[in-house]
């Protein structure tokens, strides 16, 4: 009996469709919660060549949802562990593991070798990289993102359809929206959403049904709410990405030079000379600090006020409890300003410091 007989007897697929699947090459970026079910069904379904890129290793907390792994693969690179598992599932297809990080430098060359890209990433910087590299190499991208009990799915860059940037033009700061590691996720959820992605891949290849292009599907596993939102292609966003084509590989620098945020205590800050105090709280928050040495730039306005940062000085960024100030330091770093500290303490301590300082005089 043929391995694919249940496909082949479907008039919508037939031997011809199955041959198409076996001639297709699909790259899955990230072998995590989404990547595992996608890979499992693509391998079982007879996709001729499957690429798996993931730099991460299997840890015990992955096993609740990343169904290609088990006790025997703990500590092993996910791309390599997934390849071994899938080769057992289907030894008639070619599986290539890339046990490395996807970067601007390697993305275009890797993408060129495939027909379809699947996004199983877990952070925004890689997600936008995957989207942009798909636009530049002109590959359809089967996207999904998940949040706790909810998921989104769409197909981008398909027959002049929209891209991820047409849906969300502005890349959120990494960390602004928590991922599964930070807030948890129902184990089954990426299974459901990843399976929807695999389904779109198969439909794309077979050209059957209605490809989920030009709309984003939202699914809530708690109440089975499903919502389809129409998204239009935005030429301006696509063009912006195309404009980076010639310098794309060099864009890595910016991502790689992420440095840790420097945290400072009020005590150490007090002993520093040549510093600029910046209050990043919203202006209506108490206690208000009106002092000539303290500059007020609410976090939300920081990007528009970078010109107020005195580059010859070190900045002490503070807020109510040291959380917004950390975000502020990260924003400055993203704009290549590495001279700032995030204050561990809050505005109350800063006020106390300035009160004492005035008193000393």
């Amino acid at each position, binding site marked *: 009996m043929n391995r694919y007989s249940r496909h082949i007897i479907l008039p919508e697929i037939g031997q011809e469709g199955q041959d198409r699947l076996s001639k297709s090459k699909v790259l899955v970026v990230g072998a995590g919660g989404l990547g595992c079910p996608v890979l499992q069904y693509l391998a079982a379904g007879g996709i001729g060549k499957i690429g798996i890129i993931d730099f991460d290793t299997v840890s015990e907390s992955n096993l609740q949802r990343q169904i290609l792994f088990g006790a025997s693969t703990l500590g092993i690179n996910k791309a390599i562990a997934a390849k071994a598992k899938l080769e057992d599932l289907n030894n008639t297809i070619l599986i290539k593991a890339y046990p490395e990080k996807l970067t601007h430098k390697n993305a275009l060359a890797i993408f060129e070798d495939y027909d379809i890209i699947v996004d*199983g990433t877990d952070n925004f910087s890689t*997600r936008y990289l995957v989207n942009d590299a798909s636009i530049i190499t002109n590959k359809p991208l089967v996207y999904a993102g998940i*949040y706790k009990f909810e998921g*989104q799915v769409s197909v981008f860059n398909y027959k002049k359809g929209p891209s991820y940037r047409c849906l969300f033009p502005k890349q959120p700061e990494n960390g602004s929206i928590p991922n599964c590691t930070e807030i948890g996720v129902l184990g089954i959820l990426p299974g459901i959403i990843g399976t929807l992605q695999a389904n779109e891949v198969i439909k794309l290849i077979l050209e059957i049904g209605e490809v989920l292009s030009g709309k984003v599907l939202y699914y809530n596993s708690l109440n089975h709410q499903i919502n389809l939102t129409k998204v239009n292609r935005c030429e301006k966003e696509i063009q912006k990405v195309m404009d980076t084509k010639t310098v794309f590989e060099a864009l890595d620098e910016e991502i790689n030079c992420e440095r840790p945020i420097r945290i400072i205590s009020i005590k150490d800050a007090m002993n520093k000379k040549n510093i600029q105090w910046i209050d990043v709280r919203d202006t209506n928050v108490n206690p208000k600090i009106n002092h000539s040495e303290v500059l007020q730039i609410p976090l939300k306005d920081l990007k528009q006020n970078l010109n107020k940062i005195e580059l010859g000085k070190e900045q002490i960024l503070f807020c109510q409890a040291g959380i917004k100030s950390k975000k502020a330091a990260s924003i400055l770093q993203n704009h290549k300003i590495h001279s700032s500290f995030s204050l561990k303490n809050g505005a109350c301590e800063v006020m106390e410091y300035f009160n004492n300082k005035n008193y000393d005089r």
Partner: protein
Amino acid sequence: MILSIKYFGLLAEVTGRSEEKIEFSGKSISDLKTILFQKYEVLKNKDFQIAQDNELTANEAMVTATEIVLLPPFAGG
């Protein structure tokens, strides 16, 4: 008019509701955002897109439908 607003993902958490009806007398999506920001200040710092009648819409667009969705990006994978 009465609008039905749906909040997805993190937005449902920070507003404390997944759906609500509000009375709206403004004109544009931008007016609607102003009202929502007054009601939920925390929304100001969140990334999201707005859809009306199941289609993504821009700030300048007029509110013409009663079904509104606030759609945030999802990080996880």
